[in-house]
């Protein structure tokens, strides 16, 4: 097996749409969230989600918006031009070129989290590709405070990719395997992703199993995220969004430290940003119609 070319960072990309959907007569709006690692698109018809897509952002980031929307629309019969209002949210130096309006992803995440997890959400933890955000909001998803970290990779998707790569574990298995230990090891001495290779290889040489090293990392990262959450305060209920919300190794350890469980959703927690954007799009389209009269 050629270890060099194995892509440990791969996670399942997908698109979905309602079977036999008929949206003639219904207003179609869309939300597009282009992130540093992944991009999502959510299509609403009459306020209800009828299609979505979740894929890697890739190198040609300005084109990502078009690709993810195109993939979401595939098989629906809806064309980009049919969408009445698009709200986009970007990162770094990328924006959604065909968006009618750009709204900050902070507002979109909170709004989307309410839809995914219910009105009782008051704190949203977003563990994204390249940053960590803790957002405080009310029952409507209106933001009252937030704190973010964009300087440190620990606890972000990119940080996880480095760990997965060093240990040769597919990223989708990192969490599950980190829980396959008899006793919780102490956390790694530094969460700094720059030193991860040295640290991890050292532990493996001492005889630690891969699972034990993963556990030590997940524990350190969960503690780091917890410290961030304490800075702004956690009010129940808590919702976790972003790719790492799917990592049980981090989530379970956070639960232990917090002393309670975050809310769960049946839908894809990574869609929060795009979903919030799509919901805003619906409201903005209605307002525009009223103004035009």
């Amino acid at each position, binding site marked *: 097996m050629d270890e060099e070319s194995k892509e440990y960072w791969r996670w399942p990309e997908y698109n979905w749409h309602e079977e036999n959907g008929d949206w003639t007569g219904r207003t179609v709006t869309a939300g597009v969230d282009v992130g540093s690692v992944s991009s999502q698109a959510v299509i609403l018809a009459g306020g209800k989600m009828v299609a979505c897509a979740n894929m890697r952002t890739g190198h040609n980031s300005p084109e990502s918006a078009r690709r993810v929307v195109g993939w979401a629309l595939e098989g629906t019969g809806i064309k980009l031009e049919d969408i009445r209002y698009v709200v986009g949210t*970007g*990162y*770094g*130096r*990328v*924006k959604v070129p065909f968006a009618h309006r*750009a*709204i*900050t*992803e*902070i*507002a979109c995440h909170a*709004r989307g989290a309410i839809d995914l997890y219910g009105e009782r959400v008051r704190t949203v933890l977003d563990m994204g590709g390249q940053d*960590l955000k803790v957002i405080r909001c009310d029952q*409507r*998803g*209106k*933001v*009252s*405070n*937030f*704190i*973010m*970290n*964009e*300087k*440190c990779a*620990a606890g972000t998707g990119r940080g996880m990719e480095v760990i997965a790569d060093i240990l040769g574990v597919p990223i989708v298995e990192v969490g599950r395997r980190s829980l396959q230990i008899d006793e919780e090891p102490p956390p790694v001495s530094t*969460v*700094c992703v720059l030193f991860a290779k040295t640290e991890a290889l050292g532990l493996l040489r001492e005889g630690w199993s891969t699972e034990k090293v993963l556990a030590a990392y997940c524990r350190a990262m969960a503690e*780091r995220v917890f*410290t*961030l959450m304490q*800075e702004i305060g956690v009010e129940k209920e808590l919702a976790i969004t972003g790719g790492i919300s799917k990592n049980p190794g981090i989530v379970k350890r956070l639960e232990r430290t917090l002393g309670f469980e975050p809310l769960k959703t049946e839908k894809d927690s990574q869609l929060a940003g795009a979903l919030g954007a799509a919901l*805003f799009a619906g*409201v*903005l389209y209605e*307002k525009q119609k009223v103004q035009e009269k």
Partner: protein
Amino acid sequence: MAGLRINGRKVYFSHGQTILDVAASSGIYIPHLCARAGMPPARGTRPVDRIYRGETGFVTEVLDKAFEGCGLCVVEVEGMPVPILSCSSPAREEMQVYTDSPKIREARRESLVRILERHPHGCLLCPEAAGCDRTLCSINMPEEERCCWKSGLCELQRLTDFVGIRGGLHSFRASRQLIDDNPLFQRDYSLCIGCLRCVTVCRSLAGKEVLGFVYDEDGGILVGTRAPSLKESGCIFCLACVEVCPTGAMKDKKRGEKRSTLRRKVPPAVFPSLECLEFNMENLKGVPACEGVYQLLDPKKELFLVGGTDDLRASLLDCQERYRDKVAFYTFEREPMFTTRERQIIQEHVKQHGRLPLGNCGTDDLY
């Protein structure tokens, strides 16, 4: 009414006002740390025999020297040989005052360095400060050297942004001197810069003499209570001192609690207004068509909306149509990582106002 000129502009004043008062009411910002809106100047306050920090008493070394002030409010007045301190200089008819010059800027930086040298200021100098959540330091600066809990809301920090720091500033490590003796507020004297605002407002607003200061052997200012406890010193817990403190030395323990009647009488602190342009077509046409972040301000120069874009001119022209009745001023900065910068500005705003800017989903109509 009498008139004088500040930076060439004619302004009117009433007898008894200081130059700083006159400037503030005319919308001209003069940096100040020991002075504050809503109270007389702290400059000139005399030390007392003894102060307490908890049970520990401190005795004065030099009894007869009045507080000289922070030195930041210096201005130049035509006809006067040296700059004077505007907080305690009365305005006079026909005065020609200048609030900015290379000499004044240098004098302010010198005064600020003397204050920052004895106050943990590490984050102010860090190039990675924007976007840092300040729980983990990537440059390994010890916590005692970093900025305290009030970072983002701190008046001293805002003043430092305006005045600027000159080179040669030594780092400083604070060792906590926390006094937590009542349910409403705590004091950490390791963060105190000796501005005497608390002492002054206690006297002028509450009519009490709860706080005072003595000098230490280096001539530094030590603030504390007049008796071993707040209660014994006559404290009525109005918390006006907490309201006026420009650093993290005074901290509310109960957030969201209704403020006392006296505390609500303290007017807001005065800050420099953002440098901005009028939001009209002529100005907007001169904006470059490049990546950056713009800020739209309302007629009171309060932030309405922050936006990151890959084309400043196009976006601003679009905003002119959409927000023409809400926006009166704007400013912009070139910045390739415009979304990141947009979020940083939004975060600063949220920290200070408890909500997103109105134009960035800060209103109720989108929910």
